[in-house]
């Protein structure tokens, strides 16, 4: 059940069947202008990517790509100073100061460098935690759906436990006892994202586990892990990956909250969360110190949410 409003809108014309004119005025006018060898070469790809070239997908994907590229390539390309070696005499410079296009923070650190390097850390935590949740959650969820009796029930109770646990408290406890560091933050957040993936993987596995091809694979005597990897995973990966985008945004929010509480990424390593936290005292003097990382965080999370919605709609249409 997809709850997205895009369900209710008419689907845009399928690029594979639409006339060349429709295609040319579509979202990707350049790519489709004129028929060429690429058209036939890309035919299969295009059919697979059906619905991927809608604005609902392209716009958030482009924003995400821009943010990721800026964060990971920006500091080197622009030759930015290190984010933590500012001059205390240059504290709280406004936006547009010479040498510091986005100004400086209370310690005189260059804000542009802080934001971009902080973005690297935030994205790293978001993606890393999601990967942990994805691998463990999908494994548990698939096994729970495949072996429905004792093993499945036990695994599901375990998921229920993680689910009932207010995630931030669990992450907080893990982070506090492991000590604040980037890697520990990833583990703490990754651990609680297991449950979400587990639920989805199990529900999707239950849908297909009695279909002929799975039963046939089972009956041929293949070991369970081969059936799961070769037959079940490819057929449940769509919804799981759509959820993964939401999960990345969610993990980034959790990182921000943990860093805000002083248990996430430790200063002087910047992250969007701890930039916001350490700027909290300057909200009246220099609100841009909070607004800029908050805006980046928002743009990233909103894009992952929109992308996930759009991918789910594509599947269900």
């Amino acid at each position, binding site marked *: 059940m997809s709850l997205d409003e895009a369900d209710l809108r008419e689907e845009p014309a399928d690029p594979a069947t639409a006339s060349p004119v429709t295609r040319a005025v579509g979202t990707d006018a350049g790519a489709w202008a004129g028929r060429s060898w690429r058209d036939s070469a890309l035919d299969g790809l295009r059919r697979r990517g059906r619905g991927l070239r809608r604005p609902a997908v392209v716009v958030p994907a482009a924003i995400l790509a821009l943010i990721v590229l800026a964060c990971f390539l920006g500091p080197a390309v622009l030759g930015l100073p290190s984010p933590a070696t500012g001059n205390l005499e240059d504290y709280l410079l406004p936006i547009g100061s010479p040498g510091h296009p986005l100004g400086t923070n209370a310690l005189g650190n260059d804000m542009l460098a802080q934001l971009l390097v902080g973005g690297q850390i935030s994205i790293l935590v978001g993606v890393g935690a999601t990967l942990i949740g994805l691998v463990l959650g999908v494994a548990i969820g698939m096994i729970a759906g495949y072996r429905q009796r004792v093993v499945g029930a036990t695994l599901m109770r375990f998921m229920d436990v993680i689910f009932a646990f207010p995630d931030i*408290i669990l992450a907080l406890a893990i982070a506090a006892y492991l000590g604040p560091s980037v890697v520990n933050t990833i583990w703490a957040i990754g651990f609680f994202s297991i449950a979400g993936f587990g639920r989805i993987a199990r529900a999707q596995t239950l849908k297909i586990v009695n279909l002929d091809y799975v039963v046939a694979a089972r009956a041929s005597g293949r070991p369970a892990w081969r059936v799961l990897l070769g037959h079940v995973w490819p057929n449940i990966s769509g919804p799981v990956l759509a959820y993964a985008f939401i999960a990345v945004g969610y993990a980034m929010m959790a990182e921000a909250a943990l860093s805000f509480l002083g248990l996430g990424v430790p200063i002087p390593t910047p992250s969007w969360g701890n930039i916001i936290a350490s700027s909290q005292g300057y909200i009246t003097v220099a609100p841009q110190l909070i607004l800029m990382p908050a805006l980046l965080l928002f743009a990233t999370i909103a894009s992952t949410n929109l992308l996930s919605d759009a991918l789910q709609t594509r599947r269900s249409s």
Partner: protein
Amino acid sequence: MGEPGADRTRAMLRVALNRVPQMLVVVIGCSILTFAVVNILPGDIVHSILGEDYTEAAADQLRAQLHLNDPLIVRYFVWLGESLTGDLGTSLLPPHVEVADLIGRALLPTLELVVLGQLFGLILGVLLAVVSVASRSRVVDRVISGFALVCSSIPGFVMGILLLGLLATQLHLVSPLGWASPFTDGWGENLSHILFPSIVLGLFAFPLFLRVFRAELVEQLDREDYVVLARLKGIPMRRVVFSHAVRNSSFGLLTILGVNTARLVGGVVVIELIFSIPGMGSLVTNAVIRHDAPTVMAGVSIVAIFVVVANLLVDLAYALLDPRVRDAS
């Protein structure tokens, strides 16, 4: 089929019998997990009580005193037994208050915050869903879902900080920090403290209500025969929405009430810290940071019970209200 009253009681009993054992498993699982985190992960309790410099003898004495030398399983069951008899232990940190007292004081603010936050979220979500469907305007619909996207993409604490800053710098309003008990300080004082934090929580909670309610409304209007009939009778769309579809769409909201409770309890942690509210979130966070194991154990278990009971209430409400669940045997 007996009289409806008896049916309802029976349905609720059946749900409770089904659910309660599962709930117990979840709560005990939560406490085991917390116990594992608190005791297995590095972070040494002795170290955090005695500080940097201590003699081995003092450490040994403390370990014996806290039963740290017993096997983990024994210690867990000792804890479980004591908790079940109502003894939650004493805080490891000075002034060594009874954990039960700490929690007793912290429970009410958190409860009030979560309930008010849900309420704000529910009202806002339902209202905006009805507006966006009944207006039948694509622009209104877009604006409302845009607003929901914004609210669901901003972390709660950022919203809290920005709201506080906005109030203070632009409107020259200062939201009072802390918490005032309704019993000793009066309800007016209490509400003035709790209003802004619960609005922030409500903004965090409403997008889910909006999404589900809106989707159900649209589905009802698209698919259900009574809607077609009402339209054929010449009843305007607006009336159909308000007098028929809204009522029939409200079951989804119940589910969200359950789902949102766990989310809000998580969100409350940070909100309490921003607004300096001495609730469960602040209590558990501080205990976690200072490795106060008995308080962490009790706090997390109570929170887990709270979440699980909220979900049980949702299931019971289903049994009471939804004939499909009520009459299933």
